[in-house]
């Protein structure tokens, strides 16, 4: 208990630097997530002119699919792809694809037959990406008009032809409403910056405290005392874990504010948490490592700057991947922040949990945890070796 309390007293005396890094994180994350998030009032025309790369996978193989492709092929680039969720997500991730639409088997029948339950088109997209959102609004407009025409007695082919003819008369009103509904995606953008917060605060908030705690003079005094080594270590570990929880809670509070509370109802929320938890443990073990190898505060500061900025740049936290060359990408795959970012994007893009996505999250978060475990073990080995040497 003494050591546990000491941990927070020492944290208190380092609050300046902790607040500083928190402020940097908050500024960068908020400014950028606001700048990147969807803004319905600007550049509608400009956005419209963008050519989207879309794949429409027609599992139904009826006339509806062909009509749809024809309708959207003007102004967009329609590519053919196999239905491989993994490949599609990868392409979306690298922005080689803006939108993937799957027409499930039996879709056309469900449109025509009142008795068959309505089916939905399945989509995969880059979250918060304006162009994709624009496409989506057009799509929903298209299907709702089509349904009305079908109800009025048109055949599918005729209805689609009608719509094609009317293509130029699209309204722009729906666009604005659609954009608002999509604002939650600020959360995804914001959460992408979490590694920077965790790494800087994890390394400082653990590294600096361990440095003080392990200073040879006070350590000798503690070793002379009747408090067992186990108790002392337990106190430290408890302090570190509670500190980690506080970091996590802080992020959740900020995301709640950013999303205006909607994050708590979001299906993606638990998965975001899992991904963050992996990153958190990685950062904590990095802090443990730092506090063990650093000789003084300057060394801690140096390590924090090099590792936080290095990992965040290489991991694609600060720079979007589309600016990366192939060589950089290869290196990036060895960086845990990269896997955090990939997972964050995938979770951001999801509308419902699929087994493929669950599998991805499991492996990618597992990978980050693996890194955490390796760093933790290396540190333990360093400590054990040092004991032998001084003994």
């Amino acid at each position: 208990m003494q050591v546990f309390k000491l941990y927070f007293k020492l944290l208190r005396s380092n609050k300046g630097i902790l607040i500083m890094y928190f402020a940097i994180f908050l500024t960068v994350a908020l400014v950028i997530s606001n700048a990147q998030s969807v803004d319905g009032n600007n550049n509608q025309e400009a956005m419209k002119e963008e050519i989207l790369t879309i794949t429409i996978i027609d599992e139904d193989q009826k006339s509806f699919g062909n009509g749809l492709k024809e309708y959207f092929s003007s102004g967009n680039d329609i590519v053919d792809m196999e239905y491989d969720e993994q490949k599609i997500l990868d392409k979306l991730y690298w922005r080689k694809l803006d939108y993937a639409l799957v027409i499930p088997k039996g879709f056309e029948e469900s449109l025509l037959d009142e008795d068959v339950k309505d089916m939905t088109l399945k989509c995969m997209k880059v979250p918060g990406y304006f162009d994709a959102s624009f496409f989506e609004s057009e799509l929903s407009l298209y299907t709702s008009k089509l349904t009305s025409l079908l109800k009025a007695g048109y055949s599918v082919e005729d209805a689609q032809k009608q719509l094609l003819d009317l293509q130029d008369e699209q309204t722009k009103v729906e666009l604005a409403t659609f954009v608002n509904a999509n604002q939650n995606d600020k959360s995804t953008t914001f959460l992408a910056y979490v590694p920077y917060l965790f790494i800087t605060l994890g390394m400082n908030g653990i590294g600096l405290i361990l440095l003080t705690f392990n200073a040879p003079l006070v350590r000798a005094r503690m070793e002379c005392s009747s408090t067992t080594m186990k108790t002392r270590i337990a106190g430290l570990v408890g302090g570190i874990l509670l500190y980690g929880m506080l970091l996590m809670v802080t992020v959740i509070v900020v995301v709640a504010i950013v999303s205006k509370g909607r994050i708590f109802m979001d299906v993606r929320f638990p998965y975001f948490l899992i991904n963050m938890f992996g990153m958190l443990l990685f950062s904590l073990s990095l802090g443990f490592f730092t506090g063990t190898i650093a000789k003084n505060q300057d060394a801690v500061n140096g390590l924090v700057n090099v590792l936080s900025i290095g990992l965040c740049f290489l991991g694609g936290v600060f720079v979007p991947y589309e600016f990366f060359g192939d060589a950089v990408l290869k290196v990036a795959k060895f960086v845990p922040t990269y896997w955090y970012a990939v997972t964050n994007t995938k979770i951001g893009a999801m509308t419902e949990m699929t087994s493929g996505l669950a599998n991805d999250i499991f492996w990618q978060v597992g990978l980050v945890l693996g890194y955490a475990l390796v760093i933790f073990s290396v540190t333990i080995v360093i400590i054990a070796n040092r004991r032998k040497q001084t003994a």
Partner: protein
Amino acid sequence: MVVKIENLVKRYGDLVALDHFNLEIEEGEVFGLLGPNGSGKSTTINCLLALLEYDKGTIEVFGEEMTPTSYESKKNIGVIMQNVAVFDELTVYENIDYFCGLYIKDKNERKKLVEEAIEFVELQDYRKFRPKKLSGGLLRRLNIACGIAHKPKLIILDEPTVAVDPQSRNKILEGIQKLNQEGATVIYTSHYMEEVEQICTRIAIMDKGKNIALGTKDELKGMIDLGETISVEILELPEAVKEEIAHLPHVMNVTYENHLLKVRFSKGKHNLIRLLDVLKEKEIGFAGVHSELPTLNDVFLEITGKELRD
């Protein structure tokens, strides 16, 4: 027996820091470990506290073998190391409370003990100060308070007065004697013979990792022939007179430097009278006359052939 060290050998690489060192300390003693810098005092203390592994020998504290996990023994030991060991981030009060808390879990009891320790080292006015704001003497007192707040039965102080002003030093020495009167056994290391002479009931003199002499200060001084050193201020001393003095009974050695005649006598009577008679007879005028009894430095000098302080 509170402490028993037998045949302790500690090497740092090729350097033999402790060379078959032996020591026994009884309850209630203020035991002094006197030796020049590098003689192995701190190494002895660190081995005794199981902070260091050693190459050979046995160490017992309170009748039990001392190991890093001797937590029962550690409960009753208080340690004040050579270098101040406190947290710069904590206040005076918080520091004492933290280190006391490593021994005393009960909050109320601890509060009382911490207050007592603060009063003991007279840091009442500095409770909320951080160590960086304290002078050297106050810092040393804080260092001591952190080591004794839990009222240990055995208190180990390794050179606690280094770089301390004379006033704080006296306070510290008085404090140690008071702790002893309250029942604590004390081990005190120093390279200042005056301090050790002043407070220690028994003294071991160390050199090069060996215990070269052991006893009370009188016993130690009794070990050497030197009885007294008489110094006389003389403006001019002819060589012939110096020769004559050198041949007086009991004279061990004569020096004349900077108008000061120093004569070392072995134990015997009438040394001063005989010396002054010679001076009067030769009509040599003199001013101040001082007689000094032997010090522990003389003991050290006689055994090792060098001064305690280089």
